[in-house]
C-alpha cells in the first residue's frame, strides 16, 4: 500500500521535473532571462546556472522515472526545491516583480502580476513529495527494487 503511494509520488515528481526541465531546455535564452531576473548571481554565474538547471531537472526526472537511486534523487530534488523556494522568497522580500520561470517563461513582469505565494506553495508541495521519497524510498516498478531483489536472490 505505502509502496503504491510512493510509486505514484515518485512518478509524479518525475513528471514535474520532466516538464519543467523540458520547457527550460527548449528555450535557453528565456531560461537565461529567468535566472538573471532573480538578481542573485554574479554576472559570470548566470549563464552556467541557466544552462545547468534544466539538465539537473531532466536528470532527476530520468532517475525518478526509473526509480534508480530514488533516495539520492529525492534528496537532490529537495535541495533543488529548497534553492528555488529561497530564490522566489528573496525576490518577494526584495519587492522584485518577476515570474519564477518555474515552468518556462520567467523574467520581469508588471508589478501587479507577481504570484509569489502560489509559486512557493506549489514548490512546498513538491518538497513534501521529495521528503516522502527521501524518508521512504521503497517504491514499486523501480530499478532500486529490482537490484534489492537480485541481491536477496543471490544469497
Amino acid at each position, binding site marked *: 500500500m505505502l509502496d503504491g503511494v510512493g510509486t505514484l509520488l515518485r512518478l509524479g515528481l518525475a513528471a514535474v521535473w520532466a516538464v519543467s526541465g523540458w520547457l527550460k531546455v527548449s528555450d535557453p*535564452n528565456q531560461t537565461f532571462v529567468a535566472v538573471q531576473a532573480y538578481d542573485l548571481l554574479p554576472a559570470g554565474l548566470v549563464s552556467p546556472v541557466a544552462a545547468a538547471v534544466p539538465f539537473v531537472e531532466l536528470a532527476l526526472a530520468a532517475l525518478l522515472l526509473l526509480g*534508480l537511486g530514488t533516495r539520492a534523487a529525492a534528496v537532490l530534488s529537495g535541495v533543488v526545491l529548497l534553492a528555488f523556494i529561497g530564490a522566489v522568497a528573496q525576490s518577494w522580500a526584495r519587492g522584485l*516583480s518577476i515570474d519564477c520561470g518555474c515552468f518556462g517563461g520567467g523574467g520581469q513582469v508588471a508589478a501587479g502580476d507577481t504570484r509569489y505565494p502560489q509559486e512557493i506553495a506549489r514548490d512546498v508541495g513538491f518538497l513534501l513529495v521529495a521528503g516522502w521519497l527521501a*524518508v521512504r524510498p521503497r517504491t514499486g516498478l523501480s*530499478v532500486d527494487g529490482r537490484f534489492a531483489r537480485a541481491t536477496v536472490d543471490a544469497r
Partner: protein
Amino acid sequence: MGGAERNARKRKRNQGGGARPGGATSGARAGDGKAGDGKAGGRPVPKPGSAQAALAAARAGKNDRTKVILGVVAVVVVAAAVIGGVIWTNNRKNATADAAIPVAAARQELPTTREDAAVLVGKDSAKVTLDVYEDFLCPACGGFEARFGPAIEQKLDEGVLKVRFHLVNLLDSRSDPEGYSTDSANAALLAADEGKFLRFHKSLYDSQPEEGARGWSKDQLIELGRAVGLTGQAFADGVRAGKYDQQVTAAYEKARGTEYLLQDAGNGQKAFGTPTLAVGDKVVDTSQADWLERLVAG
C-alpha cells in the same frame, strides 16, 4: 535529511569493509551487521554468533552496498547531465559567433550629428524633432523599428522630421554574456561620428539578438562597420575600447530619472522603458496607426 546522514554513515562503513580483499563475500562482520540492524525497523534480529546471524549480516551488507552504489550512480547521472548540459547549451548559444551581421538597406546621406549618447538625424528644414529612446537588445524596439522604421526614414528623407535617437543600455545584463546593449550603442555612436549611423542602426535591428541570447561581439560589430564603410582604425579602436560606454550609461541614468519619460508599469508604479518616444516633454502615443502622420502635420 536523516536518510542522507544514515546513508553517508553506511557508505563510510562499507568503504572500510570494501577495502579488504574479498570483503564483499567474506561473510559475517560485526560492524556491517549492526549497520543493517540500525536501518531495518521490523527485521528480526538473529542471535549474535549464529549461522543465521552471519547470513543476515552478509545480506544486509550486500543490500547496503547496493543502495550506496545506486545512490552514487544517481549522483553521477546528475553531475554528468550538468556538465553535458552546460557544454551543449554553450555550443548552441555560440552558434552565431562566426556569423556576419547582414547589412540592411537604409539611407546613408542624411545629415547626422552625435550629441553625447544621442544621434540627431534629419534635414534642417524639419520642424518636428522626435526623441526616440531605445536599446538594441530590446525586443519591443526591434518591433517598433520593423513596423515604423521605413515610414520614419521616409519622413526624414522628405525633410519634415528629425529624429534624435537616444541609445540607452537598459537591458545590459540581459545578453549572454552581458554587455551587448552598451557595446552596440557605443558602436552605433561611433558610426554616427562618421555619418554611417542609419544603415548600422537598421542592420542591428534587422538581425537583433534575442534577450538571453549571445549578443553580437565587438569583433562582429567592427565587421558590420567595415561592411557599411567604416573602414578606419578609429571605429575599430573605439568599439574595442568602449569609447562612449560612459555616455551611454549616463544617458540611461538621465532618462530613467526624467519624470515625463516614465510610463505606467502596473500597480500605480511608473518606470522608464524602451522604446519611449517624445516630442519636447510630451510622450508620443504610438497606439494609433497614424501617429506619425499627425506628428509631422503638427
